[in-house]
């Protein structure tokens, strides 16, 4: 029998790293179990000549395609949007675009402002200091003062505008629409041991330069120095409970595949909006027959993805292609509800600089705009290095039928039941996506683009996994309370995107981490009566 730890964190990604770092100052014995391992930047795609091809195989964003031992399969056949993630120390911060907006203050008051969904039990002001702390540790770059975004104070200057940014900016100015350099977690100067960005361009599948922030190179080194123990290649099967209905520890498989039991006084789940409900449902027992922490019946329900409406085209001038981080500018022109548009809520926009030659050839061939045969070379030279993109991140609203359950057949390499996704795009989201595409087309045509193509939704665009263990004050309508503690199991906490009440219209990682730091802070303030 292993000695019990004070705090056991499951998952070493965005939120697990943040909560581990924050709790480290308590000097409690903190252990994190992570199913993946440490990454080796020398093996990252941008360090090799096959850097683009790897994205179609072992560096795919889809765990089903990747199929590494660290990954678990996901049945997403019943969803037009496929789940993408990464499993390692750093989690999906290893593989993300580093686009770094925050939820807006209004996003926490959706019911009050628009009469739909629910308000959050916390507000922007409560999270504000943790956004700032997180930006400092993750190391953000950007330009303070965007009139249509929450005020941020990035410690590094914004990324260069580049060729693509200038074309987009001119088009947006002609239309009189808002645009601004994006906050990102790409270091634009040397920062806390990270080298500045040298425009490798292929940022999403990990940064060989280390300029893109991921928690394996930001939070984790600090947390480990402060005494947190991180055990890799350890996959948790279930959370155990005792006769008092408290979490007693976890059953996991170690790096040799041997089943272990690790007792713990507090368990914190940080497994994302698919992994967390999977674990809770797999932790069903005679005491909790519908899954752990599930007296509300809401574990796994209200899955929100952010359907992406993407449109792109080709201009005569050269664009940045793959020679820069893919995202550079955002727009909040359509972020807030405008009843005249025919839908509620709104969307953020991230503009995309371009693509590399292999990606351009493969995608354009599949879209039917790059021919086979004699004309191939002429057309390819017209397309390659001339692409501009517009992606609308549409706010998904919570709907209980969009959910994560356990697949009755599919299992991971340890025999643990895999998650099954059931998801449809709502009428409101579809109207929003169509509206966004129309605006994107106006922008591209104003920029002089032709050969316009659409991906709506982006099929492999299920990056943002939200809402499946929502927070709230009512135990019948939520899974965790206003500071992340399970209503049912008083020493069980959840800190990842599954606790989102609504999704906003922006990439969520900044808000996920701010929430994790907020919950850790609440725990530290309540240590004397944490389980009351």
């Amino acid at each position: 029998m292993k000695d019990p730890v004070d705090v056991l964190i499951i998952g070493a990604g965005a939120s697990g790293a943040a909560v581990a770092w924050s709790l480290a100052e308590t000097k409690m014995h903190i252990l994190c179990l992570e199913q993946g391992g440490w990454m080796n930047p020398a093996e990252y795609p941008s360090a090799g000549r096959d850097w683009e091809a790897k994205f179609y195989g072992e560096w795919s964003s889809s765990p089903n395609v990747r199929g590494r031992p660290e990954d678990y399969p996901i049945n997403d056949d019943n969803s037009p949007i496929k789940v993408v993630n990464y499993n390692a120390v750093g989690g999906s911060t290893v593989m993300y675009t580093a686009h770094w907006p925050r939820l807006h203050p209004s996003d926490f008051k959706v019911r009050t402002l628009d009469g739909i969904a629910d308000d959050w039990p916390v507000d922007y002001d409560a999270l504000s200091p943790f956004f700032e702390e997180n930006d400092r540790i993750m190391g953000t770059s950007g330009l303070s003062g965007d009139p249509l975004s929450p005020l941020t104070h990035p410690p590094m200057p914004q990324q260069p505008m580049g060729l693509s940014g200038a074309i987009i900016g001119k088009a947006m100015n002609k239309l009189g629409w808002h645009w601004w350099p994006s906050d990102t977690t790409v270091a634009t100067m040397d920062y806390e041991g990270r080298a500045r960005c040298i425009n490798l361009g292929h940022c999403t599948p990990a940064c060989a330069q280390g300029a893109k922030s991921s928690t394996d190179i930001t939070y984790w080194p600090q947390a480990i120095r402060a005494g947190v123990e991180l055990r890799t290649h350890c996959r948790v099967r279930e959370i155990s409970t005792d006769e008092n209905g408290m979490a007693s520890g976890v059953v996991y498989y170690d790096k040799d595949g041997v089943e272990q039991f690790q007792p713990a006084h507090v368990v914190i789940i940080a497994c994302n909006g698919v992994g967390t409900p999977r674990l809770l449902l797999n932790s069903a027992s005679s005491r909790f027959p519908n899954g752990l922490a599930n007296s509300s019946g809401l574990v796994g329900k209200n899955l929100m993805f952010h359907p992406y409406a993407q449109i792109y085209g080709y201009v005569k001038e050269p664009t940045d292609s793959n020679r820069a981080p893919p995202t550079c500018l955002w727009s909040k022109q359509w972020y807030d509800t405008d009843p005249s548009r025919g839908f509620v809520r709104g969307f953020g926009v991230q503009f995309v600089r371009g693509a590399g030659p292999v990606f351009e050839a493969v995608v354009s061939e599949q879209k039917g705009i790059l021919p086979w045969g004699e004309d191939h070379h002429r057309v390819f030279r017209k397309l390659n290095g001339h692409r501009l993109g517009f992606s609308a991140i549409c706010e998904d609203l919570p709907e209980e039928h969009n959910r994560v359950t356990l697949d009755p057949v599919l299992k991971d390499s340890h025999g643990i039941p895999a998650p099954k996704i059931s998801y449809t795009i709502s009428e409101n989201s579809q109207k929003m996506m169509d509206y966004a595409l129309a605006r994107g087309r106006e922008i591209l045509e104003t920029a002089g683009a032709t050969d316009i193509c659409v991906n709506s939704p982006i099929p492999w665009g299920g990056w943002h996994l939200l809402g499946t263990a929502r927070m709230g004050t009512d135990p019948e309508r939520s899974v965790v309370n206003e500071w992340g503690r399970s209503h049912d199991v008083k020493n069980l906490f959840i800190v990842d995107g599954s606790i989102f009440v609504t999704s906003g219209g922006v990439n969520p990682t900044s808000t996920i981490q701010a929430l994790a730091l907020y919950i850790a802070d609440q725990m530290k303030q309540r240590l004397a009566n944490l389980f009351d």
Partner: protein
Amino acid sequence: MSADNLTRTQRDDLRTIAAMIVPSSDAYKVPGADDPAIQADMLATLGRDTKLVAAALDHLARLAGAPLAELDAARREAVAQEFRKSGGAAAATLARVVLQCYYRDDRVLRSLGIEPRPPFPKGHVLPDGDWSLLDPVKARGGALRRAP
């Protein structure tokens, strides 16, 4: 599975269809995708794509009824069009394998003005741009939606 699992006929058909996807060009001074070095790269790196590429080549063989190279030009073109239309995920994988090897060939990249190297460690230089373009946005201003 690896490329060793492909038969001689399948390899011949792969070479033929690759040249139909990307033929050589005197005008652009580039080889076709049937170039021996590019073909060797495809076979050496087929890896996890072998199964689908083999399935695509089986489908192609059924459509052609004979080695692709032995068909007359018109018939070969008709078979290729039908393959592209009806080949599904397997045909798409084959086309992707051809293109991902073609567009990393040194000669091809140089013809496009791209230095044949991985992005790391040299990276790229990006113009900072004229940030006065933001002046109209700043002048217009705006306000966040109020949250009560």
